[in-house]
């Protein structure tokens, strides 16, 4: 079955819209974990420029998917809770952005926001508030992600030697 270029483009567009509803920080974490899980181990193992022993490379490669699984699981759980909490506070009107208040008074909306809602100023205010909240969540999410690295890496450092020891049978792991 052939897919016409327009249909293919529309599918890509739908995927992009679905993906973008996740928010920047979550997208960054998915892309990071996906690359670490699937690509990094292969590149370490089959690096043509490396003369390191096969066993050493296997150890370094196994660390990548183990870390990716532990990291993404912890990040999804922690960021989910944090974003839920922020959304609840915002719904109660406890998070107010100075930029939104200023624009509410002046009526001068950013061009991109106005265009996205067909110049409807009531919708533009909602859109602006949503945009600010998403950016705010992304930045707070980055701080939380950094803070989470200490327990995440401690945990994956406990798990990965066991997995590597099981998979690398060279009787030389002393």
């Amino acid at each position: 079955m052939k897919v016409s270029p327009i249909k293919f483009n529309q599918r890509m567009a739908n995927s992009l819209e679905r993906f973008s509803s996740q928010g920047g920080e979550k997208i960054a974490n998915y892309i990071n974990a996906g690359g670490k899980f699937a690509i990094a181990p292969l590149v370490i193992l089959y690096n043509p420029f490396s003369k390191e022993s096969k066993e050493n490379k296997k150890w370094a490669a196994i660390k990548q998917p183990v870390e990716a699984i532990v990291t993404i699981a912890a990040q999804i759980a922690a960021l989910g809770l944090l974003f839920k909490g922020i959304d609840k506070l915002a719904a109660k009107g406890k998070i107010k952005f100075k930029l939104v208040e200023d624009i509410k008074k002046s009526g001068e909306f950013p061009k991109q926001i106005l265009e996205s809602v067909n110049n409807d100023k009531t919708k533009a205010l909602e859109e602006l508030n949503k945009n600010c909240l998403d950016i705010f969540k992304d930045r707070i999410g980055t701080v939380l992600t950094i803070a989470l690295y200490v327990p995440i890496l401690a945990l994956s450092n406990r798990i990965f030697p066991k997995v590597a020891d099981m998979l690398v049978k060279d009787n030389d792991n002393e």
Partner: protein
Amino acid sequence: MSNILTPITQSKLFNNHLKRVINDDAFAAKTIVVCSVMKDVFAYSVRYKTTMDNEKIPEKRRPFVAAMDMASGIVTAIAQIVVGFAIASPKIQNRLWNALFKGAEFKNIGIAKKSFATILALVGSGVITERILVPLIATPLAEKMEKKFFKKTPDEQTQYPLSNYLHLSKNRPTLKSFINKTSANEKQSKKQDKKALQKTI
């Protein structure tokens, strides 16, 4: 919690940042790349420290795994910024947008374009650079670093670079060091009690 967040949401610095991210897609994408680099630099520093302390990794393998963490951190930071910023440029963004989404309909084209810029910069910096280019460059670099900087002491212990700075406390938080510290404290307090008793007598 809102008391902690209000100073941020009302600050001039954060609101100027919001304004720029909303108005400038390239800046939004570059910000995500910088955040990603910040996370990686921190993560690789922690990774390097935990690897060199991890006695579960065989001594024979540990210097290379640690050197790999260090080399990856250095190469990642430089390469991600170069590639991420180049991909975030409006020229490249527009060319790829037209190639991929010509004739497609969007509910909100503004958000879709911003997400596209972010995803592209992240795929460029986080997948192509960090996962393909970095291991390719970092593996041979780690080998060289391992030979040059990870020296062995006469008793066959590895001397890890920066270990003096990364080990903030000489007593690592192991059960053994905790017991030693507690018994030392107990002895000291007993001595002090004895002295105080002698003084009163």
